[in-house]
């Protein structure tokens, strides 16, 4: 993972609540065995018409959001399935952070493992950001992960929560598996005490 660095960006507003992972990337694109190329299918069914042409009404296809690295989304973003293809598609397209009032649990965890920062803000800040981007598509936010701050277009700086461990992994660009594998002694000790167990490899009657 690349270290997550501070940045300033315009926002792509998506004022819809409960955007589910089937909208972020429809299930029919999950037959791939690779992580690559998913950006083309990001928001596929909102983004393209029946003939596969870009739908000009969908925000992603509008010139003013080109290059935006922040997605400003409605409440409960990323609900539904556990597909990690959702943050893969978002990051490959170029998003580095999603701002909302809340995120679905699995999506949030998947995002943190892929250098996509889920930023939870209070309702008033959320509303302010939507107003700012509506007033001017060029409005930018500044994101400072080490200090956990978001600076709004009006210059207001607000704190956002990130658990310390995820922050460490993002800022240093390290993934969790390395940390887990270092706990080998603890894992082996736990395994030695387990009582209930199955053997999925055993031949059964």
């Amino acid at each position, binding site marked *: 993972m690349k270290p997550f660095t501070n940045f300033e960006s315009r926002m792509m507003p998506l*004022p819809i*609540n409960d955007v589910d992972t089937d909208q972020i990337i429809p299930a*029919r694109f999950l037959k791939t065995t690779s992580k690559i190329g998913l950006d083309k299918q990001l928001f596929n069914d909102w983004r393209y018409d029946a003939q596969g042409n870009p739908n000009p009404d969908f925000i992603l296809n509008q010139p003013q959001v080109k290059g935006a690295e922040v997605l400003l989304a409605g409440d*409960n973003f990323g609900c539904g399935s556990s597909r990690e293809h959702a943050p893969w598609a978002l990051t490959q397209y170029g998003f580095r952070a999603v701002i909302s009032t809340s995120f679905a649990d*699995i999506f949030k965890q998947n995002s943190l493992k892929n250098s996509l920062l889920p930023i939870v803000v209070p309702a008033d800040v959320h509303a302010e950001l939507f107003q700012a981007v509506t007033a001017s598509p060029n409005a930018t936010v500044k994101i400072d992960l080490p200090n956990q701050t978001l600076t709004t277009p009006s210059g207001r700086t607000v704190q956002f929560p990130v658990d310390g461990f995820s922050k460490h992994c993002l800022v240093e660009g390290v993934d969790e598996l390395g940390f*887990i594998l270092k706990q080998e002694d*603890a894992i082996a000790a736990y395994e030695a005490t387990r009582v*209930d167990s*199955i053997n999925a490899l055993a031949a059964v009657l």
Partner: protein
Amino acid sequence: MTRTIIEKLWDSHVVHEQAGAPTLLFIDLHLVHEVTSPQAFDGLRERGLKVRRPDLTIATTDHSIPTTDRTLPIVDPIAAKQLAQLETNCTEFGIRCLGIHSSKQGIVHVIGPELGLTQPGMTVVCGDSHTATHGAFGALAFGIGTSEVEQVLASQCLLQRKSKSFQVNVEGTLKNGVSAKDIILALISRIGVGGGTGSVFEFTGSAIRALSMEERMTVCNMSIEGGARAGLIAPDDTTFEYLKGRDHAPKGTAWDAAVARWRQLPTDEGATYDRSVTIDADALEPMITYGTNPGMGMAITASLPDPANVSDPMARDSITKALKYMGLEGGKPLLGHSVDVVFIGSCTNSRISDLRTAAGLLKGRKVSPKVRVLVVPGSQEVKRQAIAEGLPEVFREAGCEWREPGCSMCIAMNGDQLSPGQYSVSTSNRNFEGRQGKGGRTFLASPLTAAASAITGVVTDVRTML
């Protein structure tokens, strides 16, 4: 100190705790399928890692598998490659794979319990959000992403943060025509799709105790649709009776010892939850969803919500957008609305009792000639049992398609899908836009409601047919 079953399950799986990091939790059972695992196996190869515990890991093919004749080649080359990749990965890493030609193949959340692999007191994970299904056995079972699939393959552990406990107390007796599916749809319509975020549900109460294991699985299955990571039910005699004698269940004295341990799992008297809601089972009616998320549900006799009556602008926009997608008008009833397809299947409702229920209503009747009805058993085992009971004949004589096991039209990855604009009554778990095929429109309901609507060709209150 008194504890909930959720806390007991957590405490008994803590491998390692250290300041500044989440808890390292041991995983007792890892279920793997073709869609969310290939990139995880690639990760293992890149790092030169092995699967730590193949004895606690099992794979099957369900999501992208065709539900047509299994002796025929797979038409979709991308799906064929994905299915073959799983078999290759399992062979390379020493995992048992109940693949396309296995007599035990089935939907991952159907076969785990069926084989006795899912047991009380366990932690169960799978790269699939409906893993909560296994919570019906008093297990802490939750869906994970592909990075976490790789972590569990490599270490049999996961870094986890404790969830809040959320009691869903369902008291009373379900009326005729009302089922387990209606309990969970009622809960989600009440708390919303984000209502359980950050929580684990424990379903309690007399109405839950009265459910069979298959019905309990239906309830727990849709916990994620209420935003909860997991949902579970404390084990009892119903649980033990279901498990006893299954392939991987403990045998002999090991069985007695296991039951003695499992009896310690239920929530202690006086233990408290972070949040509780109560549902009156006597007051429940058959439920149906009308919108584009599972929280947009109502009693089947109710009228659609009118966006004009919703004050919050973003919530109003959501309902307006949903009704537009669904081609419905606020304030009108849904009863009598035309239906094109009925789907009976999915990890929510494809078990033998679901098929018996549907067949019971369909026996001696015909489905509407304008409705395509797909009946998709959850596993080869369910299929065998259905054949033994003569259910395929009942379905075929009524005019339904009887298909091979898989996820099928729940996720529409395998060619079983709606055409744009079509309406389905579906026993599956998600009504998101395009979930059952691009432009398709889904009404989620119970197997009874689905069968009744198949017969009439319109959204139907099954109680008028009982």
